């Protein structure tokens, strides 16, 4: 079999995993992290909540790491080769990796873990991403071979850390294996589980047998679940908490000038979007959708709803713009043009349009955004009504493709296939939640999936984004920054764009 070396990201050096190492890091100590979000459980295979993923990435590792610039970098893999037809990935494993149980990790464990993950019988929400895999085999102790039924350029990113993580072969044979994740960690990550008390805290301790030389620095991380931001702010000010992420602008304002605290902003993969479901008349008419896009001042909405702690976007989130985004000047319908909007509406025969926008209870940014947008759309002669629904109701509408005209708030892994395919590819291959049914866009998404060359992939996805901006099944409004607030003694912490806490594996406390 002829093998070609796949194009590895230029920055694929160990030192860059999880952010830069610190030359003068102080070792030891306990960091107290305050979290508004609580993981419903720690099972990396079956628990889909983002609140789970954020913390389990410190305990469980996949073959690849989703770098903050949107590249898949080898993590438990040390390198890989792809066959010329793009169907066979031969992955070399990193040497000297041990599980938290003390036993060494081999290819058998890797094959077992990913085979468990992709088997639909095991009920993992991550299984759907891996359906293109036809087999995973251990070639020898240090090599795994993954065979696909169709080429998949996003495979390395999909083998990252969102679902699963390599565990010892046979782990799930035990009847209580799923529950056991909450009491004992069995991954390969820099931190081990010490204690998990729901509605209270999660404690992690340093993995002394961790494979990365000299890392991590902290002996222990106590993660406190603090369900309301007023208490979290008091705790930050009183130094009961060393580090936290805040989301509401009014909360950030309260600590921004507090002595001894440092606020930092980081680009994210979050996107606040306005979705236009074609099933709702007259949103099936592209002219109506374009008119709406042309009436919207994204910057004004962003300032009204997150107080400026964000970034206006075109069709790509800020953390992925350099690697995968289409240049903003090449995208249609990005600037306000009320005259053109009115003209399009008149052409479509909807001069006095009445629309109902759905917002979700508990999403603070949506209320001011909705009021601001009501005023903006009024200029083009569109009357906006606003209705609020519970998250459960909203998800049900979304999944049954009855979303109508709604705000949305989502994030993804940093890869364009994972970002776009399921949302925008025609059914049945994609879910096409917005009933967009665009053949040209779907063809590009197929092409992007089959391509493994990163430069060619980018060209394909840029073309896709141009169609997205022109046809407007969705208006990507802005991306909220991750805002971290730390005690000034906490050093070298970087917030990963996913919102996951990889950065805790690089943080240390200055004495």
């Amino acid at each position, binding site marked *: 079999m002829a093998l070609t070396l796949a194009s590895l990201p230029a920055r694929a050096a160990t030192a860059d995993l999880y952010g830069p190492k610190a030359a003068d890091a102080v070792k030891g100590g306990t960091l107290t992290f*305050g979290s508004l979000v*609580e993981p*419903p*459980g720690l*099972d990396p295979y079956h*628990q*889909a*909540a*983002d609140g789970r993923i954020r913390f389990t990435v410190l305990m469980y590792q996949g073959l690849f790491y989703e770098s903050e610039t949107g590249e898949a970098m080898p993590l438990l893999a040390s390198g890989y080769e792809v066959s010329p037809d793009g169907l066979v990935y031969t992955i070399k494993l990193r040497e000297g990796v041990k599980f938290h149980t003390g036993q060494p990790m081999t290819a058998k464990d890797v094959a077992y873990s990913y085979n468990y993950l992709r088997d*639909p*019988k095991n*009920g*993992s*929400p991550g*299984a*759907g991403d891996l359906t293109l895999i036809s087999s995973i085999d251990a070639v020898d102790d240090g090599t795994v071979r993954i065979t696909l039924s169709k080429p998949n350029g996003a495979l390395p990113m999909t083998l990252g850390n969102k679902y699963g993580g390599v565990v010892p072969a046979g782990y799930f044979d035990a009847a209580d294996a*799923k*529950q056991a*994740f*909450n009491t004992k960690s069995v991954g390969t990550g820099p931190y081990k589980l010490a204690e998990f*008390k*729901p*509605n*209270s*805290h999660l404690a992690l301790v340093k993995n002394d047998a961790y494979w990365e030389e000299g890392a991590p620095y902290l002996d222990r991380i*106590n993660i*406190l*679940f*603090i*369900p*309301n931001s*007023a*208490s979290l702010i*008091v*705790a930050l*000010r*009183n130094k*009961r*908490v060393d580090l936290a992420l805040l989301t509401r602008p009014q909360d950030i304002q309260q600590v921004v000038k507090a002595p001894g605290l440092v606020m930092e902003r980081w680009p994210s993969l979050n996107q606040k979007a306005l979705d236009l479901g074609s099933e709702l008349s007259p949103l099936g008419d592209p002219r109506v959708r374009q008119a709406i896009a042309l009436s919207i001042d994204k910057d004004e909405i962003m300032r009204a709803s997150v107080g400026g702690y964000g970034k206006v976007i075109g069709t790509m989130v800020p953390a992925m713009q350099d690697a995968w985004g289409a240049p903003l000047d090449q995208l249609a319908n990005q600037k306000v043009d009320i005259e053109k909007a009115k003209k399009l509406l008149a052409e479509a025969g909807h001069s006095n349009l009445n629309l109902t926008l759905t917002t979700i209870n508990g999403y603070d940014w949506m209320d001011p955004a909705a009021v601001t947008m009501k005023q903006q759309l009024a200029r083009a002669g569109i009357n906006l009504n606003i209705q609020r629904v*519970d*998250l*459960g*109701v909203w*998800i*049900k509408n*979304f*999944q049954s493709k009855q979303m109508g005209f709604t705000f949305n708030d*989502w994030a993804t892994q940093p890869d364009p296939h994972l970002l776009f395919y*399921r*949302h925008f590819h025609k059914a049945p291959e994609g*879910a096409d939640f917005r009933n967009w049914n665009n053949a040209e866009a779907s063809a590009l998404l197929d092409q992007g999936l089959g391509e493994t060359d990163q430069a060619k992939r980018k060209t394909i996805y840029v073309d896709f984004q141009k169609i997205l901006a022109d046809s407007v099944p969705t208006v990507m409004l802005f991306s909220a920054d991750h805002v971290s607030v730390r005690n000034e003694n906490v050093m070298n912490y970087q917030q990963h764009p996913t919102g996951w806490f990889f950065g805790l594996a690089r943080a240390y406390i200055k004495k």
Partner: protein
Amino acid sequence: MGGYLARRLAASAVTAFVASIAVFLIVRAVPGDVVAQMLGQVSDPQAAASLRGFLGLDQPVWIQYGRWISAALSGDLGISWTGGRAVGPAVFDAFLVTLEIGLLTLALATIVGVPLGIISGIYEGRWPDNLIQIFNLLGLAAPVFWTGLMLLVAVSSFAGWSPPLIYTSPTESLWENLSILMLPILSLGLLQAAAYSQFVRQNVVTSLNQDYVRTARAKGVTIRILFFKHILKNILIPLITFMGLVLVQILGGVVIVETLFSIPGLGRLLISAIETRDYPMLQGALLVVVVTAMAVNLIIDLLYSVIDPRVRLS
């Protein structure tokens, strides 16, 4: 007494059974698809179907109920869907925390509220009464979340101190435990003390105006003897009834203070179970709340006969 107790317990069992059905149905009436919520918005239909089957949600509701109640009767409240932990022990641990808050709040409210109410009643219309009435009004008007937040912010700004955030049980360290619970108990207790004080004042005023009191005073009985020998006895029965109401009210207020002060009690458990649509946890926690309220009522009824021999429990 024995027969009365047996009948009351039998009636309670029937109530608990009806309540268990209500709890089971109410939990399922919360809008939204639990599986969709667990898997997130971009979930795979196959994964959703498999999870639905795994959780038993593909069965008719009455079969789901039958499975749950028969397991519950043998002491097994099931496994939490989200956390994967056993519901019984989780609810029990949280209940102990809430019970401690509830009893300490009740104690605080009684110790502060009853004397204030008595003083207020005795000095009706004079300055001590007016002063106490102001306290009562403020206490009753201020919502618990506001009092709690203000206490937290005030203590933090003036003393630079805020309660520890990892819960410690009283058996581990009583001091640490009390420093965690002090502010929540204070914020709940102030409200209930005001309610107590208002209630006791009303009863004292009414008693003082009754014929037997006037007669006794005309005969020269001192107000102190009169109060402790007669009036206090007469207000004990309504006071005990009121105490039961207060305890149930405290259980409601606990949801707020536990969330505000990050305390792992039953209130916070309920909120997080509702948010994640964790049916087994929610059912277990609600059942404990219902049983507790019934137990409180039963205990109060039994106390009546102890305090007032005229109340016959047969």
